[in-house]
């Protein structure tokens, strides 16, 4: 019974992904169909068009196995033995350096924005007239 529910819910997610693909092809969008499906489902959940119960088991199941679905694509690396070369080393180095730069910049920026938002909230609370506490 539980397996059946998971399978049915995955079908619902599949339908959203399919609709997303149709929209992407129809309007020739750059955004992947699956992402359009994600936005559609999120909207439907927020407006209670689709109850969370209809997808939570299926979504939980897929997300717990997320890494598995990547593996057939990653195995494709076997066709790229050319990466074991000077060009390949530079290519990998570009990814490594960019990752370090990105983490450093984004972490600092995120923390900065967070503190700024908190300060503003703090200011608003201070400027509010204090209601007499009993």
């Amino acid at each position, binding site marked *: 019974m539980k397996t059946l529910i998971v399978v049915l819910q995955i079908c619902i997610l599949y339908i959203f992904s399919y609709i997303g693909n149709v929209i992407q092809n129809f309007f020739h969008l750059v955004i*992947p169909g*699956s*992402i359009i499906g*994600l936005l559609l489902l999120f909207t439907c959940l927020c407006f209670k068009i689709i109850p969370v119960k209809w997808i939570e088991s299926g979504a939980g199941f897929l997300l717990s196995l997320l890494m598995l679905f990547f593996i*057939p694509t990653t195995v*494709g690396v076997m066709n790229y033995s050319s990466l074991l070369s000077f060009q390949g080393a530079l290519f990998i180095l570009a990814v*490594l350096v960019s990752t*370090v730069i990105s983490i450093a910049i984004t972490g600092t*920026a*995120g923390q900065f924005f967070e503190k700024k938002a908190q300060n503003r909230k703090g200011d608003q609370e201070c400027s509010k007239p204090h209601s007499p506490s009993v």
Partner: protein
Amino acid sequence: MQQATFAFCMILVTIIAYLAMAKVYKRYSYSVLIPVLTATTIIIIILSLFHISYDRYMVGGQWISSLLGPSVVALAYPLYNQRRFLLDNLLPIIGGVLVGASSGMVSVALLAKLFRIDHSLALSLIPKSLTTPVAIEVARGLGGSASLAVVCVMIAGIFGAIVAPSIFKWTRVHTPIGRGIALGSASHAIGTAKAAEYGELTFSMSSITMALSAIIGSVLGPIVVWIFHI
């Protein structure tokens, strides 16, 4: 009939390799033992031993890949669960994600220019900090190679999760939003798994960032390629 049996065997090999390696990772929890990396290595070794080409493997493998689409759609579920937290911190999150997505793409585009990396290779580099299914589609859309893009995504994910703690110490990033956004935007799903070690708030920040970066990144990718003439 024989074709179907072969496809089934390939699916089975993939699932067994994944489950076994997931168990090993859970037991020893070294970042280097990430199941995607270890299971992929094992499958490549098996395929080379039996002289099976990637195209023949994909007769079975494509069935597993076909679940990528619904999995991305499934990300709407955690996003919906955390919608309140998302709304409360909307401005810092959006600001951070924008900085994250653009710093990742612009820096790798500049490095590709600096290192004089080949045109078609460079196109596969651009989506390296997006979550894999999205990176695959963005790379395809840009005209790069999907499997090469996945290699970049994996390297960015694993390396990011390993070096992030030292970078946070060095740049003095201590807040959950700062750490979560940095991990989610630079190292996607693997970074998000790493973020769980910093607590629930950092974890939810990272998963939200991963989903938002996917959306922003798929729009930003073509723009970066256009600006830098890659």
